[in-house]
């Protein structure tokens, strides 16, 4: 896809989002005008600002047709093929990390994420990879669970119990 096409599509996407926001406020029955004795209704701010967003998107679309923005004249690819791989793989790997966090818990998924990123994407040595795979969960545990007292997601009960069994050592011995 060229940058030119991407700008037009983005213009329509932002227009749709803006109209969707307006519809959302309207359909929820929020007042978008002055309420006697109570001041501006709850919907005034989001509704009228979303209208502003819609108008700004419309302006971008009109400017695209007039060829006024540099992007509307650019025939360069929106995301170059050579960089597409790195960018898409990175974004998808975070998506998988988030998914795994809710299934196998934070620590195991962090290890899998590091293994993938450092070894398979970065092609680093096994030594470096293992340092990251083991070091990251330890660092995260010490910083978030111990210092910041946050209970990070532990996934399904079986994984949670496994973690709690390990975590118990901390309370027993430290």
């Amino acid at each position, binding site marked *: 896809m060229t940058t030119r096409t991407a700008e037009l599509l983005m213009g329509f996407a932002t227009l749709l989002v803006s109209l969707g926001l307006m519809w959302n406020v309207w359909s929820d029955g929020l007042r978008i005008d002055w309420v006697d004795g109570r001041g501006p209704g709850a919907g005034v*701010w*989001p509704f009228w600002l979303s209208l502003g967003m819609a108008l*700004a998107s419309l302006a971008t679309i009109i400017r695209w047709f007039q060829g006024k923005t540099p992007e509307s004249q650019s025939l360069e690819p929106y995301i170059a093929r050579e960089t597409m791989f790195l960018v898409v793989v990175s974004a998808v790997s975070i998506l998988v990390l988030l998914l795994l966090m809710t299934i196998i818990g934070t620590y195991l998924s962090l290890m899998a994420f590091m293994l993938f990123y450092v070894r398979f994407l970065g092609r680093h040595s096994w030594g470096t990879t293992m340092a990251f795979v083991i070091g990251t969960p330890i660092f995260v545990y010490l910083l978030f669970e111990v210092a910041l007292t946050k209970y990070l997601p532990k996934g399904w009960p079986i994984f949670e119990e496994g973690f709690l069994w390990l975590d118990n050592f901390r309370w027993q011995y430290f």
Partner: protein
Amino acid sequence: METILVSLAGGLLQAFEPLNLFMIFAGCLAGLLVGCMPGLGSVNGVAILLPVTFLVPPTAAIIFLAALYYGAMYGGAISSITLGIPGASTAVATVFDGRPMAQAGKADKALMAAAIASFIGGTVSIILFTLFAPPLAAFALKFGPQEEFALMLLAFATFIGLGGDDIPKTIFSILLGLVMAAIGFDIISGQPRMIFFDMVEFQRGIGFLVLAIGIYGIGEMLWTLESTKGKVQMHNVTITWARMKENFGQIKEYINSTWVGSFLGFFVGTLPAAGATPASLMSYGLSKTFSKDPESFGKGNISGVAAPEAANNAASTGSMLPMITLGIPGSPTTAILLGGMIIWGLRPGPLLFQESPDFVWGLIGSMYVANFATVLLNIALIPVFIRVLAMPFTLLTPIIFVLCVLGVFATTDRMFDTWIMLILGVGGYLLRKLNYPVAPAVLAIVLGPLAERSLRQSLISSQGDVTTFITRPISLTCIILAILLMSYPLIQRMMRRRTAEPSEN
């Protein structure tokens, strides 16, 4: 003046408390590291590390983040000079002459000049900050909701007028941030608003950190991966004690540009849309214009390194002035700091000087100390930073991603927010590729609740009479300035057309 000195002395004492002093050094070090990594700047560091600062009390937390902000300005120069890639957008102008100097084997000279100029820029602006902040805060005490709203309007108008980006896209970005801030329960009527797909998670709204970390963590890393293709090319730097001493003696060559950069940087930094990047570019331009040898700029003139470096440090302090005194951030980084202050339970704005003097003066005191700490750490650790810079992106990126995900989770304890962060991060990256500015959205989501509240309070107190904004002198002045700023691009275009016409005739 006397009260300022007494308060400042108290602030300095506070800065020397062991925890605070440790935070200054830790912040400077983190800032230098973040700043020197290509693609990452102060705003990314502050956004990603803000959740971690909940470990310590608010004063120590802001001291850490301010030191980080400050350190990142120094750090940016390191990669600009040795890699030829700006460590942060604020160090773009440093590449122009820093890179040719490094190619000519004078990287150490350029690094030293950058450190010294940053130190002078920082010192000048902290002194100006100390002098200006208390009277400005005292003046701002007269502000009612009308003035607050007008001031925020002015802040957004500067983005439209001076941001230099596509105007409809800038407006879209501002409004998107403001609307996103309204998700959740209405602050006045308590009604739920914009609960998409009836998901209860939306009732708690979208925190500014979710957007900030999405855009400046995930989005920025995707952007950097794309622009560097995961690889960097480095120049060798030879540093010896004798050369360092020799370089220190050459300060006369660039002292004038440094002064210009320092003062210019501070004042440009106080403007919301401007900040450190335009300040450093303007400073570079000015010292080139007034140089006796403008031809040598861009080919390795040491003044071309000193001028932007002095300016970006001065601007970082300058942008804290409106944040502390008026509650209006002067840059995306200070917008995140402001959001942090709200999380810590402080109320940013003029009352801060009265309600939390320890916090404010502790911060100011720490900035003096941070300036010394950073210049020392910077010069002493240049070889270490160069090692860090050689670290491949495939090692740095996963660490940042993990910090982003867990940082967002740690602030809200909800996986839901991490999903939203990813969506916003990828969305922000796609928008940014089409030249949509993202900084206004971050500023807007922080200011959104404050702006809506002040607008509604003003209208309720005036019983719906909108002239309340123009019958009060301070509010009227702000609104006139805002209109002028918003129409500035139009006026500029008309003037350009007028000057073009006679030449055509």
